[in-house]
């Protein structure tokens, strides 16, 4: 065995992880495009899947990377959805601008939510997250004149994308627009979690005392992560508003928050692929089983989750990772 010179090894590792990331991003894009060709009649459902995937990704940033449990992430998603919906009805119809408005609203809400939640730790923190989403839910319900209350907002008519592609009845434009957004956000988040900032977040999850002994204050780091997480969730909400042209109270609900956490645990925490896999599997199972047996689909989803937690505690992505490692090890052993 030849020993690699240390400097070339140091250069090789970031290159290798960069290569793996590019393959991963390409796979996400290919899977998305495959969905476009394979299920042309279900594009509006697939677009909703992308919108929720952005919510679950945003939750992964907070739960998976910083170790802060939250059952209120839909507060940020809903803020984005309502902001985009209200702006669209007020005459701002440019889709990119609507996404930016949603991201900004989610980001601001994230800052507020972080400021409140970071005062507490552990269980009280979790309870605060629930309280925040319930408060926003009630606020959206009561502010009928702005949000449409329990009727929600409808009748949004976003302008054609780039002034050319109409948001058509079959949801083709919306889906491809959503897929492009997802890929862009995914690449940005991959860079984020590999940045020094991302590493400090992981450190805060593993041992906050060590981070403070390094001279790093946790609060500004975590608050920034809440801002970013809010912007991502808000982007998802705005995409949902543009694609479905409806914004309802369910977008800022405890139920959606809890489902997002379930999807994340299903897919695997602390690696962005897990958020995507979890969302796709959960929503696909829900979609298929609900059509098949509308009364007992939740039982089946519950059973699936129990099985995952018992047999694959690192989630589906963790199991895939494990399988890949075992396969690679086998290959290396057979090599001369």
């Amino acid at each position, binding site marked *: 065995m030849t020993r690699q010179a240390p400097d070339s090894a140091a250069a090789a590792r970031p290159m290798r992880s960069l290569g793996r990331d590019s393959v991963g991003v390409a796979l996400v894009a290919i899977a998305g495009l495959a969905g476009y060709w394979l299920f042309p009649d279900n594009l509006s459902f697939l677009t909703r899947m992308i919108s929720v995937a952005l919510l679950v990704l945003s939750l992964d940033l907070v739960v998976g990377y910083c170790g802060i449990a939250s059952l209120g992430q839909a507060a940020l998603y809903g803020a984005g959805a309502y902001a985009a919906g209200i702006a669209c009805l007020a005459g701002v119809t440019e889709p990119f601008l609507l996404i930016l408005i949603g991201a900004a609203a989610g980001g601001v809400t994230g800052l507020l939510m972080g400021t409140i939640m970071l005062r507490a730790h552990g269980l009280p923190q979790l309870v605060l997250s629930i309280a925040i989403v319930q408060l926003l839910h009630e606020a959206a319900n009561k502010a009928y004149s702005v949000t449409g209350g329990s009727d929600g907002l409808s009748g949004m008519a976003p302008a054609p994308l780039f002034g050319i592609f109409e948001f058509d009845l079959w949801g083709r434009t919306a889906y491809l627009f959503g897929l492009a957004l997802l890929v862009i956000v995914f690449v940005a988040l991959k860079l984020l979690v590999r940045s020094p900032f*991302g590493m400090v977040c992981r450190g805060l999850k593993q041992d906050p005392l*060590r981070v403070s*002994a390094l001279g790093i204050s946790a609060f500004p780091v975590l608050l920034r992560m809440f801002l970013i997480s809010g912007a991502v969730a808000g982007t998802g909400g705005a995409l949902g508003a543009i694609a479905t042209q409806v914004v309802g109270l369910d977008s800022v609900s405890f139920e959606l928050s809890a489902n997002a956490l379930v999807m994340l645990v299903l897919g695997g925490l602390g690696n962005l692929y897990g958020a995507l896999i979890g969302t796709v599997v959960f929503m696909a199972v829900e979609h298929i089983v609900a059509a098949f047996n509308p009364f007992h689909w939740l039982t089946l989803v519950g059973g699936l989750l129990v099985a995952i937690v018992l047999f694959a505690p690192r989630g589906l992505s963790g199991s895939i990772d494990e399988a890949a490692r075992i396969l690679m090890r086998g290959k290396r052993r057979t090599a001369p």
Partner: protein
Amino acid sequence: MNAVFEVAHLSKSFGGLRVNHDVSIAMAAGERLALIGPNGAGKTTFVNLVTGRIPPSAGSVRLAGEDITSLGAVARVRRGLVRTFQVTRLFPDMTPEEHVVMAILQRQGRATRILARFHGDGAASDEAAGILATLSLTAIARRKVAEIAYGQQRLLEIAIAMAQRPKVLLLDEPAAGVPSSDTPLIERALERLPASLAVLMIEHDMDLVFRFAKRVVVLAAGELIFQGLPADVARDDRVREAYLGSYAHAGG
């Protein structure tokens, strides 16, 4: 003496219990000082007071002439008062290299940058490689901390502290939990600490104290009862009484 680190009349009471009372210590740059004391002497409280984890009831802490008594733990680290932990506090899923790189980036004020790559920083990883090599940790630099031996984790704590380039270093029982066969590794690592650095070691292992420290202070029942040369500490009556307590009387 031109003190780089000065603790003056530091006291802490929890209710009526005086855990630290009127403790004063001054250290010059480059000094090697050991703080010893029997169990329950208030050593842990002293570390917590000095590092800013708990506020004192009275007294002050000065670092390089600046009064840092009112500063929090993070601010004190940034001013150059760095500690290691009695029980290692590390990130189990990260590698030694990543720990040291993070410490270097923080020293340079770049640890929380978003628009940068953690693993792509040539200068920081070169410096980290140098520090890890000094402590013979090169072979395991890319393994997860959860997979390396406890003695190596202790060395990594020292490596991180070196990367932080402190003015004053507090070593909280650097050899605690290390099998005695590995103690020489820790000792060698301590010998390699920069000569200009003031090091305060809190330690139980008297052999280590005698070899490392040029001066010893003894804390007993929250009060300093001895300051002087390591050679004199075992001959001091008050120290013997503090350590042996009633046994001394029973014998005499």
